[in-house]
């Protein structure tokens, strides 16, 4: 006879062993409270530009409500190929080397499942987005994290990659500009990493969802580095650059063997990305460049304000070159990341995310997103300023955003 309590034991042990997300508890706390200003949000504060929404509405009126091919609308794939060619000079065959996915999340899952054999090791820089390690484990791989440090501005170095390689290493995951640190890799960092990748015959999965949100230097697409195109699965999407998170639309680009294999899984599990989102993405690529440039300009201006606010508070924060996150070092308050975030939420109703939710090397840091209105940022930093002062940090001057 099966007892009710035994159900959990019948769950796949791999799934059971995955720990709950580090931000879950925090999410529950923050959601319960009223009047919270959140700097804990990993998405743009802009609503999708109207021309994109309107384009989607029009497509519905025209009756675009059916399946598309598994790989996605050819017209959209052609636009994506064109965009990659124009922006990074890297060419993909829209028919065989591109796959439209349900956000980068699906692209990540597909690439892991298509490439990992049981026991293969995947190198994951850390701190990083919360999905990489679980997606690896769910695909039967072994996540091997590579810690990065604030001394190196949270950049991944070739040296650190080299040291983490074992005979079982198959994949290197790259995630720059980085969530949660905002770190970017310079072209010369990537060239050095590419050397190691070549020497050890690795495959690279490069999540470049924040590529357009680069403020220092210009973004280098990993596939555009000589010799890397064919051994790289490039993942990108529309969520961050076009403020389209809820549409769940992204893409994967890679050699036809990889994309073909990913498409096999995609066709049996997803079938195709929703056509409404595909139509919206098409409009974004065709007419969204100027709107995107404006949004990036806004982020960059807020980035300067937030950096100044931390400086004035006496909280050290390295300068993030991309995404819309700052990753200040809060250790001078004497609090752990979790205590800092929890107390700040309880006492000042400002939500930030503890840095260790993104891996142990995020300990002593918190992630503050500046994807928030100027008013909210101003008020949040006024409150935070009082908070850190009460916790013994000498601020320079009164923060005035």
């Amino acid at each position, binding site marked *: 006879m099966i007892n009710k309590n035994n159900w959990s034991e019948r769950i796949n042990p791999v799934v059971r062993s995955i720990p709950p*997300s580090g*931000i879950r508890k*925090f*999410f529950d706390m*923050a*959601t319960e409270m009223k009047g*919270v200003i*959140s700097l*804990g*949000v*990993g*998405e743009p*504060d802009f*609503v999708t530009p109207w021309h994109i929404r309107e384009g989607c509405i029009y497509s519905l009126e025209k009756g675009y409500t059916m399946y598309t091919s598994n790989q996605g609308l050819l017209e959209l794939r052609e636009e994506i190929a064109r965009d990659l060619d124009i922006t990074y000079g890297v060419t993909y065959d829209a028919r065989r080397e591109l796959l439209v996915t349900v956000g980068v999340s699906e692209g990540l899952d597909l690439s892991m499942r298509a490439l990992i054999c049981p026991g293969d090791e995947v190198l994951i820089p850390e701190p990083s*987005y*919360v*999905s990489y390690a679980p997606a690896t484990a769910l695909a039967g791989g072994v996540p091997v994290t590579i810690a990065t440090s604030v001394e190196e501005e949270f950049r991944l170095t070739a040296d650190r990659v080299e040291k983490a390689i074992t005979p079982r290493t198959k994949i290197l995951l790259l995630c720059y500009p980085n*969530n949660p640190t905002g770190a970017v890799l310079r072209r010369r960092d990537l060239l050095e990493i590419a050397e190691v990748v070549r020497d050890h015959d690795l495959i690279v999965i490069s999540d470049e969802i924040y590529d357009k949100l680069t*403020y*220092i230097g210009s973004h280098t697409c990993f596939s555009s580095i000589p010799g890397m195109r064919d051994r790289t699965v490039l993942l990108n999407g529309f969520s961050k650059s076009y403020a389209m998170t809820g549409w769940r639309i992204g893409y994967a680009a890679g050699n036809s063997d990889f994309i073909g294999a990913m498409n096999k899984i995609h066709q049996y599990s997803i079938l195709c990305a929703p056509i409404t989102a595909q139509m919206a993405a098409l409009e974004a690529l065709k007419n969204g460049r100027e709107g995107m*440039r404006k949004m*990036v*300009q806004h982020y*960059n*201006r*807020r980035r*300067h*304000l937030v950096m*100044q606010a931390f400086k004035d508070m006496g909280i050290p924060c390295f300068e993030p070159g991309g995404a819309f996150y700052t990753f200040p070092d809060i250790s001078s308050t004497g609090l752990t990341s979790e205590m800092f975030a929890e107390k700040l939420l309880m006492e000042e109703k400002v*939500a930030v*995310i503890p840095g260790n*939710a993104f891996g142990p090397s995020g300990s002593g840091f918190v992630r503050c997103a500046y994807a928030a*209105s*100027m008013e909210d940022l101003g008020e949040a930093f006024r409150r935070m300023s009082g908070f850190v002062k009460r916790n013994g940090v000498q601020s320079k001057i009164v923060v*005035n*955003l």
Partner: protein
Amino acid sequence: MNIPPGGQCKGGAGVKEILELLESNSKLTENDIAIMLSMDVEEVRSKIKELENNKTILKYITLVNWEKVGEEKVSAMIEVRTTPQRDVGFDSVAERIYRFPEVRSVRLLSGTYDLGVFIEGRTMREVSHFVATKLSTIEGVVSTTTHFVLKTYKQDGVIIEDDEEDRRLVVSP
């Protein structure tokens, strides 16, 4: 040194960006503008002063939704046809119109009429009276067509009743 996308930095112009920021929010302080654009605060101050002096910046105004405080206002858009005059074209008749304080804006337009005049008053009667006695009697005005405003949806790029709020989850990875 960081150069913001599409912008100039220390020593450069940066004027357009200062104007853009002030146009979107005239309450921004010189200090905030300097930080946002990675400029020196003194430089921002002197540039703004210069822009005010040379009348690039004409005025700092506030967009008010008067209905919120129960203030009744009536406004009308008036199409004005005129006879352009030798040497001065439309300018002299336009001036005679825009000098009236009731007139909020005057624009010369292409199309079936010449001047688009925007008038604001307390009552419909007041506006009608102004059109009948002042505007249409000006020399050079051939005819007027008055359109009373029933509802304003958007003004100066601002949606009056915008119900699009922040619907994001409080915390997300």
